């Protein structure tokens, strides 16, 4: 039992640090650190920088990095801490594994290089107004018409759909069987006639998600991934990857550092907030949980045995559950720190350009939106309740 990384792993970490320093535009780093909203071009630029280094998890033949789980962990930790993760890359992280695992050669050849290079922006068309946690009850229909499907229905909560070139989408191709058995996985060009995208404003003031209406959209059958009516299997595979992606330990660590720096600058009762025992203890209580999460994640990375068999598979649910809770706790700490200058509201555009009117301390503008938007962490990628259902079933056998 040993916490030390090997010399090779340490060298790898140094290499990643250097790469990030040399390649991530400093403007992007600053905006991420301060919690600004990024434009599409900034998000794409950031994703491209990271993908260039090699994409974790992808097999080498398609441009994967070929890293060990520990290297992947180190990479992710450094990227989050830098910070350099501009966006959730739905293409590289979610749809690509489905394509290279279940897609045909033509699809692999066409899509994978474009995804690696972020030529296309992808969005995830899973949720519907009537199908959230119970995703398999989705109703968007795809009816075969020669070498096309005719798609009719509605998706909702589709992140960044307003920017997207492509959507990977779950559709119902057979309404007459058990709900899980009539679903297919389609790749849909967002420029297709019949698609309308309507952004939805969320409580942080931003428009990060959309409604996507599909009104008689024609999709070529060659855009079906894998077999017709087998889409649910691919979706489950994808959702497993989505949960496993990260427990945002690096992001939370960077946030705690920022909290400490800001607390040292924030006046309180004639002294500084950083000197107030109650506040420091509140921060420390979160740090302890974060350290425990980091250790738990390292145990998963190191493939150490967990309490019960099967836990290894469902460990990603534990990480997601606890990770979202701690991420929310760090956002709460920031909110407690900022004090009354959380009040002024700045528009999404102002937060994107960083061109906020001079009201209160400069850093305060971004805090309340971050707090509001943090509540989503326990809702998306399978809500906390759903994670608990999974753990109860898969690990505890209840």
């Amino acid at each position, binding site marked *: 039992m040993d*916490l030390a990384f090997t010399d090779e792993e340490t060298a790898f970490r140094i290499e990643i640090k250097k790469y990030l320093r040399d390649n991530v535009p400093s403007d992007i780093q600053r905006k991420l650190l301060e919690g600004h909203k990024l434009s599409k071009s900034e998000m794409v630029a950031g994703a491209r920088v990271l993908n260039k280094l090699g994409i974790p998890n992808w097999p080498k033949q398609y441009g994967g990095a070929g890293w060990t789980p520990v290297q992947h962990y180190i990479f992710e930790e450094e990227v989050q801490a830098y910070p350099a993760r501009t966006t959730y890359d739905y293409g590289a992280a979610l749809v690509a594994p489905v394509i290279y695992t279940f897609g045909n050669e033509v699809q692999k050849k066409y899509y994978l290089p474009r995804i690696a290079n972020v030529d296309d922006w992808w969005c995830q068309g899973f949720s519907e107004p009537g199908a959230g946690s119970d995703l398999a009850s989705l109703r968007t229909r795809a009816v075969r018409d020669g070498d096309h499907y005719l798609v009719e229905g509605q998706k909702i909560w589709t992140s960044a759909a307003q920017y997207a070139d492509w959507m990977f989408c779950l559709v119902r191709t057979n309404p007459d069987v058990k709900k899980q058995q009539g679903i297919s996985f389609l790749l849909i060009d967002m420029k297709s006639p019949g698609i309308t995208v309507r952004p939805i404003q969320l409580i942080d003031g931003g428009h990060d998600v959309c409604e996507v209406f599909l009104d008689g959209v024609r999709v070529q059958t060659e855009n079906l991934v894998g077999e017709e009516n087998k889409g649910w299997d691919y979706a489950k595979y994808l959702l497993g990857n989505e949960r496993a992606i990260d427990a945002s330990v690096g992001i939370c660590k960077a946030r705690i550092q920022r909290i400490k720096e800001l607390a040292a600058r924030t006046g309180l009762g004639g002294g500084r907030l950083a000197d107030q025992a109650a506040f420091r203890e509140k*921060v*420390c209580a979160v740090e*302890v949980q974060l350290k425990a*999460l980091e250790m738990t994640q390292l145990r998963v990375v190191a493939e150490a045995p967990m309490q019960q068999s099967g836990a290894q598979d469902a460990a990603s649910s534990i990480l997601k559950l606890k990770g979202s809770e701690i991420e929310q706790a760090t956002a709460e700490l920031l909110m407690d720190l900022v004090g009354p200058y959380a009040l002024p509201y700045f528009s999404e555009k102002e937060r994107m350009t960083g061109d906020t009117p001079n009201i209160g301390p400069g850093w305060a503008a971004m805090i309340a939106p971050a707090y509001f938007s943090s509540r989503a962490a326990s809702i998306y990628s399978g809500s906390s309740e759903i994670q*608990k*259902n999974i753990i109860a079933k898969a690990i*505890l056998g*209840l």
Partner: protein
Amino acid sequence: MNFDLSDEQRLLQDSVERLIADWYTFDHRRSYQEDKAGYSEAMWARYAELGLLALPFAEKHGGFGGGAIDIMTVMEAFGKALILEPYFATVVLAGGVLRYGASEQQKMDIIPQIAKGSMKLAFAYAEPQSRYDLFDVETKATRDADGWTLNGAKGLVLCGDAADKIVVTARTAGDTRDTDGIGLFLVDAEAPGLARRGYATQDGLRAAEITLHNVPVRFAQVIGDPAGSLPIISRVADEAVAALCAEAVGCFIKMQTITVDYLKTREQFGRKIGTFQVLQHSAVDILVELEQSRSMAMYAAMMVSECDATKRERAVSAAKVQIGRSAKAIGHQSIQLHGAIGMTMEYSIGHYFKRAAMIERLFGDGDHHLRRLAALGGLIDPH
């Protein structure tokens, strides 16, 4: 970076787990508790036979040279069994003082006897007023030509009534809460002027209140620097916390498995209660707390030998904060999910809860360690 036990550590784990399975069922434990001493002398002999009593000591003193991970492995198994014998007091506490403070001669005199199982020790560090502050020592040691004389009162001496010798902290200089001027004295339990009042503790173990009235101590019985032994005491306390965290994890593992088993057998409203979603989610909360605690117990074990005192203390305090939090969360929920049977002394779950609640209070509770961690700047340094 790895979380694996070495081959020897795995062997150790297997043999302790086997010992516990064969000799420490809930019924065994109940019968041991009825023994005169409140624990089993026969088990003590078995620990000696397996080498557990010699585990952390250097080979040249008759030990096995084991480290914090070995102790973690043993303490976790002991936590599962809720052992009653004074292993923690003798080997981890007093043994720790000997390892860090004793002279070569003292080690040669005492450690082989501990290893054989023929001598038990206790560590009298606390006093009625000291709460969790190790330096809060009123007991006085005064020096004369022949040695030292101790006067004062020590409290909550774990296994104080069973010990053959007691390591006593006493003040040789300064005021009650000074960090300097504290010495360590190895006192014979039968020494004239030493009176002990043994009693049961909430977890079924034993402790003693000890008064010292003109207790004579020879120079040869002083451990370390009589005026500056707080660093030794702190070091031992950190190791004690790491060991207790592992013992707590052993308790948590049992609470978790017993509770899930119960959810799968108990029926109400015509179905297994484990099919109710609220109870499933509580059971998941217990599991998550357990895994987080286990992570921190490992972290403490890996960091407790760290030479940088700040890093070590931060890690140990963080682990104790986590354990304290989990002791409440797991303890309360596992009793709740059992209903009334969980409230009985006949059933095991309450015993684990009680031990975990006492562990919370040994060497500093969660609040104490959160304060210490905050005073040390937390785990994460700003840029």
